[in-house]
């Protein structure tokens, strides 16, 4: 249940898997993403409402064949240059995208967590998103005849989240902005949770979400595992790191150097870096 991070990633994340690393600005599982890069996973379908710099890094490193998302950017800074490079120029490999709104993605996770094949929402009507994906359809209310949007459930092979604490049995506790993490874990076939610390007892905290051990496949203690994002009650967001990423990520060579030196990982595609 409690494992080292590298072992957790090795056991739970396979090439070709659909993988969701969730976190809404807060508690982003950055260390787990870096471990996926280091282990050289390939052909992943990456899922996330708000892909930010860790997804930029994974995409730039060539881990992803597809991205399912609703907002991809460097929050407070600007664009994701590796993401753009993949979409606009196919570097280091072409990236297929499946694009939704936040409301749609959130409801897709809810359906996944609920064991339903789809969710219903008021959304997408009149937008050009509808024409770009076959995962937005129309459904009619059987009582009123009203037309609404339907989106299919998301059920990742593995969901990865970061949390403040876990106990020794693997019960997980997170608080602050808890986003979509509960639904992401409940929707997934397997799940990995990195935590700031492992404690004997999870003292209740206002606003907490508890993920019972039986829906968690593995827990890894990774203090600082969501840096440069933040862990409410543990450390603040490193806004400078988000700004610095802009420069690193603008240039393929600079990025490849970061991969090798910053992460100890291979350049994305041998012979093509730069």
């Amino acid at each position, binding site marked *: 249940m409690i494992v080292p991070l590298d072992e957790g990633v090795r056991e739970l994340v396979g090439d070709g898997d659909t993988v969701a690393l969730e976190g809404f600005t807060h508690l982003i599982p950055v260390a787990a993403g870096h471990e996926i890069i280091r282990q050289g996973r390939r052909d992943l379908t990456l899922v996330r409402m708000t892909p930010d710099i860790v997804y930029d890094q994974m995409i730039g490193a060539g881990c992803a064949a597809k991205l399912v998302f609703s907002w991809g950017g460097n929050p407070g800074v600007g664009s994701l240059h590796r993401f753009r490079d993949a979409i606009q120029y196919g570097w280091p490999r072409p990236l297929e995208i499946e694009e939704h709104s936040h409301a749609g993605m959130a409801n897709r996770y809810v359906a996944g967590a609920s064991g339903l094949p789809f969710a219903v929402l008021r959304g997408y*009507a009149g937008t*050009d998103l509808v024409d770009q994906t076959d995962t937005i359809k129309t459904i009619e209310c059987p009582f009123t005849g009203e037309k609404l949007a339907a989106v299919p459930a998301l059920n990742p092979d593995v969901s990865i989240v970061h949390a403040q604490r876990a106990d020794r049995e693997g019960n997980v506790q997170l608080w602050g902005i808890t986003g979509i993490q509960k639904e992401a874990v409940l929707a997934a076939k397997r799940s990995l949770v990195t935590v700031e610390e492992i404690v004997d007892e999870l003292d209740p905290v206002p606003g907490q979400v508890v993920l019972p051990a039986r829906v968690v496949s593995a827990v890894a203690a990774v203090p600082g595992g969501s840096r440069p994002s933040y862990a*409410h009650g543990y450390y603040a967001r490193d806004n400078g790191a988000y700004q610095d990423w802009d420069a690193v990520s603008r240039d393929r060579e600079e990025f490849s150097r970061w991969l090798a030196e910053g992460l100890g990982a291979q350049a994305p595609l041998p012979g093509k870096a730069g």
Partner: protein
Amino acid sequence: MTTATGYTADEMMTVAAAHALTSEMACFVGIGLPSTAANLACRTHAPGLWMIYESGTLGTRPDTLPLSIGDGVLAETADTVVSVPEVFNYWLQPGRIDVGFLGAAQIDRYANINTTVIGDYTDPKVRLPGAGGAPEIAASCREVVVVVRQSARTFVDRADFVTSVGHGRGAGERERLGLRGAGPTRVITDLGVLKPDPATRELTLVQLHAGVTVDDVRAATGWELAVSPELASTPEPTAEELSVLRSLTGRD
């Protein structure tokens, strides 16, 4: 660009946007310019403004300007923090929110908003971040206010991609689409204020900021801009508004 009276066009825009909000409103706040304006309103004429961010923070009152939609300060100062599905399903979707405050990368003649892509979707010139919460904010809030810097590249006749529906291709289209909110009721820029024409829904210049001419606005608009016969002047920011705004943005 500091005007003679000692404030920038961005500051004028932010103050004008803040004026769209009142103390009784609930406001769904997008990050960036809209967030700055809403936080300014809160600290000046609209102390009761109830701000929601899509990260799930309801009734938040940050003491510093949040840098992202999920800043810790939003959670710490909120009436309550709910999950992301809850903020969209229980709070936004039923039409509980008076005003949605949005930005745009492109906005067109009918106030449709593009934050997805410049150029062709499958072969983009510039890939933008995407939809986020905007499509449903634009659909479900009772009204929408857009805050965006004005230029002919941004204000286009027809958006390359409609991420969030404004008034579609004109009057009656929101109703036809089943969108329950009134849609964009004003667009506040660094040059002036535009509102949809009551009959055609086409964005029309109704207000000019100090020192800006109609020709300036026309030059910064990618279609033949209609101008209201009752064109008004935007009140200039007060010293207090500027001082609060600068304490928020860290520009002293």
